[in-house]
């Protein structure tokens, strides 16, 4: 038995977060203020996502945590261990086996299904914040559906670079009403925001929760003559050979050699286990020895 309440937070706090989640689901894309708690980890490490996960986990869940697609980074490992210890939930690294997935800045490559919940860690939930620093103003802009400034920003991208240079945290319009920051996922992931899974977004420092119910219409902002494009590095994965996944660029020496590899480690491992091999892969059996 653990010395903590189930899933760490006290019941009063969980009720408050649960009410915020429900209002978030009722008004998709709208940022619901909530009384974010201090968590035993620093801001920027996913305190918002952790609080949302704590409020929704049940003992039967199988929990997965990814950080930029990887299950093995410090952030992912520590959050996974946190809920192993405080909620006693089973954990996994396999996307298909997980019922709740907490993520920092990626959507898994494997399409999520109806029984799954995706929890995002969000640093700055307000998509208009870098254009208008005053909260009172951005709140009014959302109320009045006054999103011209965002289109000006994308237009300035085109004027300066010839194309929309925003590559991550690419703004989306939810169900034709609210402009939403999808958290700093690469824009490659934007099309997968329309999902069969429930998606919940938690920003701990900024004290906001928002949500996308399944099958919510999510459109990446663009222009008729500059349509949205889900771009990625123009390579195949060096390890598993996949040509349709989001890639990390890894510098391998000081002479300019580099490896492009799937950012979603579980997806890449599953492909290698199934016999796929990229140009720079060691035989899979050898890597498991």
């Amino acid at each position, binding site marked *: 038995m653990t010395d903590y*309440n*189930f*899933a760490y937070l006290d*019941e*009063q706090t*969980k*009720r*408050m977060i*649960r*009410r*915020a*989640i*429900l*209002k*978030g*689901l*009722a*008004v*998709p894309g*709208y940022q*619901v*203020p909530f009384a974010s708690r201090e968590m035993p980890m620093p801001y920027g490490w996913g305190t918002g996502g952790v609080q949302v996960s704590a*409020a*929704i*986990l*049940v*003992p039967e869940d199988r929990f997965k945590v990814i950080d930029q697609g990887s299950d093995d980074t410090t952030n992912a490992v520590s959050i996974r261990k946190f809920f192993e210890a405080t909620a006693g939930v089973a954990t996994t690294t396999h996307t298909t086996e997980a019922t709740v997935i907490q993520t920092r800045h990626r959507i898994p490559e494997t399409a999520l299904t109806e029984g799954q919940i995706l929890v995002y860690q969000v640093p700055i939930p307000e998509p208009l914040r870098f254009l208008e620093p005053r909260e009172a103003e951005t*709140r*009014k802009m*959302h*109320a*009045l559906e006054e999103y011209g400034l965002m289109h000006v920003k994308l237009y300035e991208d085109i004027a300066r670079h010839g194309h929309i240079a925003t590559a991550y945290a690419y703004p989306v319009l939810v*169900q034709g*009403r*609210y402009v939403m920051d999808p958290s700093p996922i690469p824009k490659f992931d934007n099309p997968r925001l329309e999902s*069969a899974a*429930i998606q919940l977004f938690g920003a701990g420092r900024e004290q906001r929760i928002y*949500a*996308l*119910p*399944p*099958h*919510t*219409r999510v459109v990446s902002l663009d222009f008729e003559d500059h349509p949205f494009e889900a771009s990625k590095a123009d390579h195949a994965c060096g390890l598993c050979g996949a040509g349709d996944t989001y890639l990390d660029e890894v510098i391998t020496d000081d002479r300019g050699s580099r490896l492009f590899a799937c950012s979603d480690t579980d997806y890449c491992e599953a492909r290698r286990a199934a016999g796929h091999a990229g140009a720079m892969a060691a035989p899979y059996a050898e890597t498991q020895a």
Partner: protein
Amino acid sequence: MSTHLTGGFDNPPVQSALAFRAVMNALARPGRIETVAGAAAPAPVSPAAAVLLLTLCDAETPIFLAGAHDCAAVRDWLAFHCGTPVVTRRAEAMFALGGWEALAPIGEFSVGAPEYPDRAATLIVEVDELEGAGARLTGPGIAGEARLSLPEVAAFAANHARFPLGFDSFLTCGSRIAGLPRSTRVETD
């Protein structure tokens, strides 16, 4: 003997977590009917409504009790288990509990403000029957369309028309529950 001391969760952290998962699924997928268990409040409160109260209500959530639900037994049970203040003006309520007719005039409940649409009431509507048939639902959470038996269509259609403002509803019947957020478009056919 008074029953207001009984009917709570035996294991609140786990039971409220399980209940919330069902409640969240119901609201995120309008038209889906979930089953909940573990709570029993005095009549006429249904088991599903009792679970909702235990899972979502506390001292921070003023509640409006409508019609037969506004009785001493229910007030005592709420006070003991949730500590929820009971208000008599609809406009002050974050939650409301009762039959559909008793909840009227529905227009007095808070629908939130343009800058804070989350500050809207949540209605727990006790219904005699709850089935996946009747009014047509479309919108977020629904692939294609869903069907749900509603006590009235016009009021929910009008509620959706002023999205993002509007109240959100749960329909409860026995131990079964369905969610109807303001984002759902409701039509007769």
